């Protein structure tokens, strides 16, 4: 369709010495304005599919950890996904510390994954880092896998007592979400 304007230049449109026509300026200005306007239209159309304000407002969760016995874990919900909060026994802490960090696929120590003064509280997402199933091992009587932590039944990922990937297809340790102790016994996640 561009050929019509090319012939127009020779006949009807004022042309300057350097071959630039007044119409070139108008074309560029009009198309440029339409392009900028188009971006302003596309942005809200894309943005509307991102989490809405009510979803974001529900994105932090408080959990009371005082009633969790050593060796026991509870499941909470954080951003519509399972959250495991576990109080480790001394034996589990010792088992986790006995594994040299350098030998791990995702090199984190138990210290990296817990908070100062609360080394026995392990907070992780209950979402396998392979493809998102919920690993077993949090509820009583569930299989804990070969390393006594968590075991994902979908594709056989084994996690140790610190929730670190030991064996199986999962690429990284169970995610530790951002959280903090807002009192001695209550954590706020997110």
């Amino acid at each position, binding site marked *: *369709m561009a050929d*019509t304007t090319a012939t*127009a230049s020779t006949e*009807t449109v004022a042309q300057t010495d350097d071959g630039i026509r007044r119409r070139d300026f108008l074309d560029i200005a009009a198309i440029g304005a339409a392009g900028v306007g188009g971006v302003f239209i596309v942005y*809200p*159309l894309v*943005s*509307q599919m991102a989490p809405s304000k009510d979803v974001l407002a529900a994105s932090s969760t408080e959990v009371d950890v005082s009633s969790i016995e050593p060796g026991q874990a509870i499941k909470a919900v954080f951003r519509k996904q399972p959250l495991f909060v576990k109080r480790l026994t001394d034996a589990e802490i010792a088992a986790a510390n006995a594994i040299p960090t350098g030998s791990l696929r995702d090199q984190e120590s138990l210290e990296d994954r817990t908070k100062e003064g609360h080394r026995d509280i392990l907070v992780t997402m209950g979402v396998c880092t392979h493809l998102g199933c919920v690993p077993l091992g949090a509820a009583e009587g569930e299989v804990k896998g070969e390393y006594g932590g968590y075991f994902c039944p979908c594709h056989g990922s084994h996690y140790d007592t610190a929730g670190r990937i030991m064996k199986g297809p999962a690429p990284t340790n169970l995610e530790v979400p951002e959280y903090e102790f807002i009192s001695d016994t209550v954590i706020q996640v997110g």
Partner: protein
Amino acid sequence: MSFPWAREYQPSNGFTRFLDEKLPLPRLVYNAVGAGYPVPRNLSYFWNFGVLAGFFLVLQIVTGVVLAMHYAANAQVAFATTEHIMRNVNWGWMMRYAHANGASFFFIVVYMHIFRGLFYSSYKAPREMIWLLGVVIFLLMMATAFMGYVLPWGQMSFWGAKVITGLFGAIPLVGEPIQVWLLGGFAPDNAALNRFFSLHFLLPFVIAGVVILHIWALHIPGSSNPTGVEVKQESDTVPFHPYYTAKDGFGLGVVLLAYFAMVFFLPNALGHPDNYIEANPLSTPAHIVPEWYFWPFYAILRAFTVDFILPAKLWGVIAMFASILLWFFLPWLDKSPVRSGHYRPLFRKFFWFGLIPAMIVLFICGGAPAEEPYVMLSQIATAYYFLHFLVILPIVSSVEKPEPLPYSITEAVLGSDKKAVLGENTTPAV
């Protein structure tokens, strides 16, 4: 089909040559809205409104699909999800205001388009099919707009649904069962809301399909023009692109300025505050009126107040539907061979001093409460409306002496340039 001098699409590189052989989509576009479609050179801005209507159809579909991602058609939560869109969804307020005002602007541009068709008799041969398809589009638009207005499930939504489905209740014998069947209940509720949502989503795509037929039918004779004289020679036309893409583009810019002024500064000016109150089956709003674009037809509905053989309620319903359905017969009611109102002195008088004032009166009365003087005014205007199309138009078209028409479009434009008119320079400057 097109004029013999229409430019032929020339694929310019290997890829477009490949495409032209396998799927000649660029050729289709070139011949439909590109340089391959010769258009009368004298079109005024009244010929912008078809493109504008197409733009608003696309706008309504895009914003509507977005809203449907966040809305739930359930009587328990419909009102709440509408407010969720307004408050929580990113840019949701803008999408909803764009959609609500987009409906109004769609009707504004379509009414201008119809006005153009009526004044310039665009419905006459050889363009009857374009007009008939246009009336179908208009009916589909009305149905779509009505059902869309029910979805927010506010007070006006609910009572609008009740009143409009009540129209079908006026049909003798089977009316009430039909109304109950339409609603899937005895009053608007979940069943009605769900089917209205389903159809409100479907119908715009049906409209898009009929629009394609409308444009297809248009491309056979080509566009009409303000003189109503058919294209005779190449100098009567210019290629659609760049001439009318530029003119339509400018018109679109002007309309968008007005549209976004409404969306951003007066988003609720054309709505009703009552629709921000959740639907309540036990309480009717004090003053219930449809959206502004239905006012003229609503006035015709209410103009019948006395039983005459049939009940007044039924007369109103018949008249309201007939007021639009008679447009289907317009190409055969107006028999004058001259199209443009500019060359029809008698038609012009009845058009400007009869039909247009009657429509304005109906518009005002439709939005006013059902009390005097509005009832009497809408009765007079309704009577004139039907007289105009069924009696005046046929008589005028047979007794009128039209003013002399220009020989050609070129003459109408370049009358003083005899050389151009006589055909020595029949190629327009491109």
